[in-house]
């Protein structure tokens, strides 16, 4: 029974990572940049939803929608102002700019909303399912997160694989110049990528804070880094990979704590990551690209 309850905790933590990782992968796989500000967009999304539901008394559904709208706009604006001028620069230059944006968002949040933590009200309430005479509890938010994660993964897979915009995104991710020669509006495509990534960030923020309700200006940064790790573990650019990577990371974290040592939990998670990559150097579902010589 302990095993099962650990597994469930792992799945629910993992699905939060996964949902963040999906947004990460979207931008990471297509714009080919590590958007370290992603975690902070998540934080903004959570704050928007928080204020909308507590101070604005909006229904949670509208809270989430509003958060998505705000984050989408924020994502697109950030892309336009901070990343677009660097289209021709090295990816590292963009990475550093993203770090600047991350600091910017965190410190703006600090000034706007103060450093005092807020307690987020779960958008689906705190109900939980009790199984085996209450020996096993599954919270509703965990179920919602996992389901949301699956739906988003499926939708993204369909979108990038089947739609015209999705194909344009793949083309941009490989060669922006050639994509332009195909008649693809690269700037627009990348904006759409950021819009989707940021909308997902809003959802992720709301779900993250529903499950783990402390909300602070730094709330997004650690989950952001873990989700990035998860995205790499799953294989860069692979949408199902991001999800599997996220869930695995969560499960390993909980099992590591539960069965080995809480003191070593970070080391365990990262050791498993390293071992996995040593065995499979392109992540779990990453494509092995053999360079033609």
């Amino acid at each position: 029974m302990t095993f099962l309850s650990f597994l469930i905790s792992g799945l629910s933590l993992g699905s939060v990572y996964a949902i963040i990782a999906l947004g990460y992968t979207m931008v990471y796989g297509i714009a080919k940049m590590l958007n370290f500000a992603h975690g902070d967009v998540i934080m903004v999304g959570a704050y928007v939803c928080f204020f909308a539901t507590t101070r604005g008394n909006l229904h949670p559904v509208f809270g989430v929608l509003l958060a998505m709208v705000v984050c989408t706009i924020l994502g697109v604006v950030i892309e336009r102002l901070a990343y677009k001028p660097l289209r021709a620069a090295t990816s590292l230059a963009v990475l550093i700019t993203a770090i600047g944006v991350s600091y910017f968002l965190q410190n703006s949040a600090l000034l706007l909303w103060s450093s005092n933590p807020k307690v987020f009200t779960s958008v689906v309430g705190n109900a939980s399912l009790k199984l085996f005479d209450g020996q096993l509890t599954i919270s509703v938010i965990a179920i919602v997160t996992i389901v949301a994660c699956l739906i988003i993964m499926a939708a993204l897979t369909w979108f990038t694989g089947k739609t015209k915009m999705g194909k344009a995104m793949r083309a941009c991710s490989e060669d922006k110049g050639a994509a332009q020669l195909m008649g693809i509006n690269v700037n627009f495509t990348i904006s759409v990528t950021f819009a989707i990534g940021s909308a997902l960030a809003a959802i992720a923020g709301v779900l993250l804070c529903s499950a783990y309700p402390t909300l602070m200006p730094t709330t997004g940064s650690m989950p952001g880094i873990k989700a990035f790790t998860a995205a790499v573990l799953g294989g860069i650019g692979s949408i199902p990979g991001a999800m599997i990577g996220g869930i695995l990371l969560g499960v390993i974290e909980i099992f590591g704590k539960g069965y080995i040592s809480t003191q070593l939990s970070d080391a365990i998670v990262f050791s498993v990551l390293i071992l996995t990559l040593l065995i499979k150097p392109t992540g779990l579902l990453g494509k092995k690209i053999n360079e033609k010589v």
Partner: protein
Amino acid sequence: GGTEKPPAETPNAGGKEPAATAFKIGGTGPLTGGAAIYGNAAKNGAQIAVEEINALGGIQFELKYEDDEHDAEKAVNAYNKLKDWGVQMTLGSVTSTPGVATSAEMFNDRIFALTPSASAPAVTEGKDNVYQMCFADPNQGSASAQYIADKKLGTKIAVIYKNDDVYSKGIYNTFVSKAKELNLAIVSTTTFTEDSQTDFSVQLADAKKNGADLIFLPMYYTPASLILQQAKSMDYSPKYFGVDGMDGILTLENFDTSLAEGVMLLTPFSADATDERTVNFVKKYQELFKETPNQFAADGYDVVYAYKKAIETAGITPDMKAADICEKLVQVFPTISVDGLTGEKMTWAKTGEVSKTPKGMVIEKGTYVGMD
């Protein structure tokens, strides 16, 4: 509610140039970053005290707080900035690790420090001119164990502490050794870190599995609030015992206070106390900062009043050099007794440690109630 709305950095009651008529006091603390709540609280508390004292027209203070991002390196930078400004006595650093670093500098520079909240023993150890306003961590640890044993609060105890945090680990260390001494049964010890402070299901499951009926939580209230919430969703309802960092949990915006029902803690301050001094302070704080003050704010407030008392006793004047002030304060501090928000008749040992009695509090219906 912003932290930075209040009037001016350095209020000047008379409207005249403070120059040599005001004492320059300053401190460092995390005003940005993940620990910013503590720094801002201490700063705000001190600021209220400065405004009050300046309004009296006697001793005048000029207060400056520099951001240290909860980092030893930045804290030394911040402290040096204060030196350039001409600081005459300091409020040290708000948190422990930066506190250890800055207090070593202040010891060398002969600038007196009274820190509101840097509670690690290493902050004061071997430094005759560094004093604490808060309990030192070991005291909290052993006092908590003693309290639990005396009142027979729990038979099987679980401890969850933050493994990469000086404060949390410091209290844990002495709690454990004292508990051993008192034959308290610790049945579960688990940890978490800055990087993994979201999910506590494993820690709670361990405590539950081992039948713990009391969980000792030497940590700040933010992770504690998550523990309370997650335990509830597991249908696990042990007693909780916290330390001074737990204070503030009721002020968390939008917190479901019923989760904290029955949580006990040792703290020198509670915002719900009904004495005039506290009521007055809380009211002012809420007006200025739109938040309820926590214990850091109270400690910051008390530090300024302690300085006032010491200055009066020692006959120090604003035109004196920092080093001279330091020598006088070193002599006078062990002799004075101060009444403040965090304790009546507080006195200091020559080691810099404060002596005040912690109050055992329990949360009932969303307010703190004295346990004794």
